[in-house]
């Protein structure tokens, strides 16, 4: 059952992304992007990231997608039916991105993703690196997991079951505590970046006042 739901979300995600990338009408692309975002949110839920799933729905579906659709509507003259996007040098680009997909899959699942391991009696066995995350440089794994729990428990008392990632009470408690303790500086920096970017966007997008309007506002002030 779990697998079936995962495959449904995966299909929604990939099909939506394919329509987004390929469909000639950009309005259809925008609506397909909606399905991609919802599917990705579902994938987050399947990976125990409930807070991220809600954030994805609110920010991407409720914010970025609306912005994109506004952009479509503001930059196309609907009367002139200029919405359809012309096809360009598509075969070359298709080959390029298929090659990219092949490279990525080779990196993920190919021979380089496995490594041979010598056991004590001299036999070499081929082991998939992905099934043994402790071998990967980015995963100090168990230590890291323990460290997170340990930091939390030092700061906030003994860890309950709910504080570990496998617990059933969701991740928002943990994320909130980490955002205001270990990740406080990045959190503040990113909030300032967001503020500056939004103010800058308004400045860039606003209409230049005509000389008469400028004179009027000066006489009023």
């Amino acid at each position: 059952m779990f697998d079936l739901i995962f495959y449904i979300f995966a299909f929604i995600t990939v099909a939506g992304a394919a329509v987004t990338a390929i469909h000639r009408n950009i309005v259809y692309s925008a609506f397909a992007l909606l399905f991609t975002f919802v599917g990705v949110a579902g994938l987050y839920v399947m990976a125990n990231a409930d807070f991220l799933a809600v954030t994805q729905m609110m920010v991407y579906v409720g914010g970025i997608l609306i912005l994109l659709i506004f952009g479509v509507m503001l930059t196309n003259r609907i009367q002139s039916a200029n919405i359809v996007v012309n096809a360009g040098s598509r075969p070359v680009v298709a080959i390029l991105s298929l090659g990219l997909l092949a490279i990525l899959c080779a990196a993920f699942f190919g021979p380089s993703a496995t490594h041979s391991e010598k056991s004590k009696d001299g036999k070499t066995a081929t082991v998939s690196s992905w099934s043994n995350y402790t071998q990967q440089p980015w995963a100090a794994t168990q230590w890291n997991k323990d460290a997170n729990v340990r930091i939390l428990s030092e700061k906030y008392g003994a860890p309950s079951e709910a504080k570990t990632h496998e617990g059933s009470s969701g991740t928002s408690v943990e994320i909130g505590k980490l955002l205001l303790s270990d990740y406080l500086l990045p959190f503040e920096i990113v909030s300032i970046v967001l503020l500056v970017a939004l103010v800058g966007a308004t400045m860039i997008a606003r209409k230049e006042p005509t000389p008469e309007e400028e004179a009027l506002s000066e006489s009023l002030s």
Partner: protein
Amino acid sequence: MTIGLNHYLFISAVLFSLGVYAMLSRRNVIAVLMGVELILNAANINFIAFSRFGGINIGGQLSSIFVIVIAAAEAAVALAIVLNIFKNFKTVNPADADTLRD
């Protein structure tokens, strides 16, 4: 076969390739932006997958929160620039905005 890290990695690879295809082949700046969003989502899926299966635990989720924030800022600024390009050039084809070339 139970769902594991590989499934997430494959979906993210497909999403990334489709995003690159959209970025390179579309003749409309907004569609190019949609490709960028696809790529950012692919990166986020990887973060979440490694957070669940790769042992980096909650750190991956925090990283993807920051990615989402940056994506929101990027979309706002990029849309503002696109509106200005449309106002000045009367087109949204990225190939037509080539004043600096002359």
